[in-house]
């Protein structure tokens, strides 16, 4: 129950993205993942952590960037977060939706 209360307390935009990353924690991520129908595994969290590091380092996220990342390949990315991996993973990670077209 506490998880849900936490998730409800965070500020999110119309599309469901957190507007303030300082409100993010793993429970919040878990809650958003549930909304997206994704069951988080340790591998999911590895990818989420990597995404958060990229955003902190001010690096733009893109599908091409995933290919070059060395962390995971595009196929795995789509398998982990089916239905729009960049969109969904950033939402779970509590970072802004990437503006990239590629």
């Amino acid at each position, binding site marked *: 129950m506490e998880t849900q209360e936490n998730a409800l307390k965070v500020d999110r935009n119309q599309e469901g993205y957190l507007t303030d990353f300082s409100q993010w924690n793993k429970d919040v991520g878990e809650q958003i993942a549930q909304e997206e129908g994704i069951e988080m595994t340790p591998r999911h969290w590895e990818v989420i952590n990597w995404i958060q590091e990229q955003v902190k380092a001010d690096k*733009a996220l*893109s*599908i*091409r*960037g995933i*290919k070059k990342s060395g962390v995971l*390949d*595009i*196929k795995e990315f*789509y398998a982990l977060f*089916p*239905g*729009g*991996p*960049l*969109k969904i993973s950033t939402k779970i990670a509590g970072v802004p939706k990437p503006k*990239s*077209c*590629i």
Partner: protein
Amino acid sequence: MSTTKVKKMLFILSKATIENVYAAFIMANGARMEGIEAEIFFTFFGLEAVQKKKLNNLHVATVGNPAMHIPTMVGGLPGMEAIATKMMKKEMEKLDMPPVDEFLEILSASGVKLWGCKLAIDMFHLEEKDLIDDMDGILTIGDFYNRADQDGTQMLFV
């Protein structure tokens, strides 16, 4: 899965100029990024984009393209297409747009189905080995229409 009304985007790519090839690729990739299925049917000159020997040498059209803002006669001079293409590729690299071969790898890995048009392949005397290994097969237009036979499918001719 996708919550959009569009479930599947089918593209017919019939041209080999860079601007057309990238339009189809970016739209197909963009569809996958939104959780929408995407397939590309390469026909006629569009087949150049999946021929191993040609795909990295596609050009911008400098003749018959008013948006180039150069006189048609000048656009037809030797080397003009190469210069315009080089300039455009440079700009695309700045925006982190991948070259054609890498873009095809991205599309395939993202689950975009890549089909060759049987009639055009026969017409240009091509064989399967001339096309990239990531091709999903060779289809007739009828086969391709069958793949469109479901709700929420859109087909675009590029």
